């Protein structure tokens, strides 16, 4: 599995949960604390299980999520 780096820009998160709902691995949870805007921000719990499919990022209305992947050299 590719190495994936997924980052959340917590202060931009509005806690809408759209990312969580679409993650095929159900990795995204809402944090207990609230951010500066007063929302419970989304977080990934088990980074290592993340496939880097970026469905969460594509669904996030507020561009909170960035996804990067280790490039695999082919051959």
């Amino acid at each position, binding site marked *: 599995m590719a190495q994936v780096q997924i980052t959340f820009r917590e202060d931009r998160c*509005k806690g809408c949960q759209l990312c969580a709902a679409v993650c095929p691995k159900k990795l995204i949870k809402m944090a207990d604390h*609230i951010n*500066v*805007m*007063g929302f419970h921000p989304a977080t990934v719990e088990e980074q290592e299980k993340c496939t880097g499919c970026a469905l969460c990022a594509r669904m996030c209305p507020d561009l909170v999520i960035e996804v990067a992947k280790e490039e695999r050299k082919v051959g």
Partner: protein
Amino acid sequence: MFEGILIAGFGGQGVLSTGQLLAYAGMMEDKHVAWIPSYGPEMRGGTANCGITISDQPISSPVVSEPTVLIAMNRPSLEKFEPAVVPGGLILVNSSLINIKTKRTDVRTVYMPANDLAEELGNSKVANNIILGALLELTGVVSADAVLESLKKVLPPKRHNLIPVNAEALEKGRELACKFKEKKSS
């Protein structure tokens, strides 16, 4: 007698209805009252505030640009409005959601973990009324009775079941304020 009260917080914190409750109570006590909300797209950002003026004189501008009391339900509200409070005024801070202190030294400040207290009462929605209770105790702008009476008018009958918990919240706030007063005076 004149109070210009500004209540500010997130949408959904009951900011507007708390203000209306206060205005209603003022009216029941035959005072001059005016209530005015912020309105429009500012609300999209998720913030809301309203101003309530209660006075024994006719009210000129209903806009509370220089509050005698500020209720800050969240951090942005405190930061935004604390400079406007009149010297000698009162700031009520919801410390459950606000982890900073005011910079003002020329006003009275009361910190109350309103959300935590509300959850203790079993209803997170009554945080605002806890602070309201404190406000009544500290300013005497209207009586708690008038507020309770107003609740009956403001709430639709099918939600009258919420009156007891609101009353509890008001009382809770009052108690805390008393302690605060004691502390001050002690």
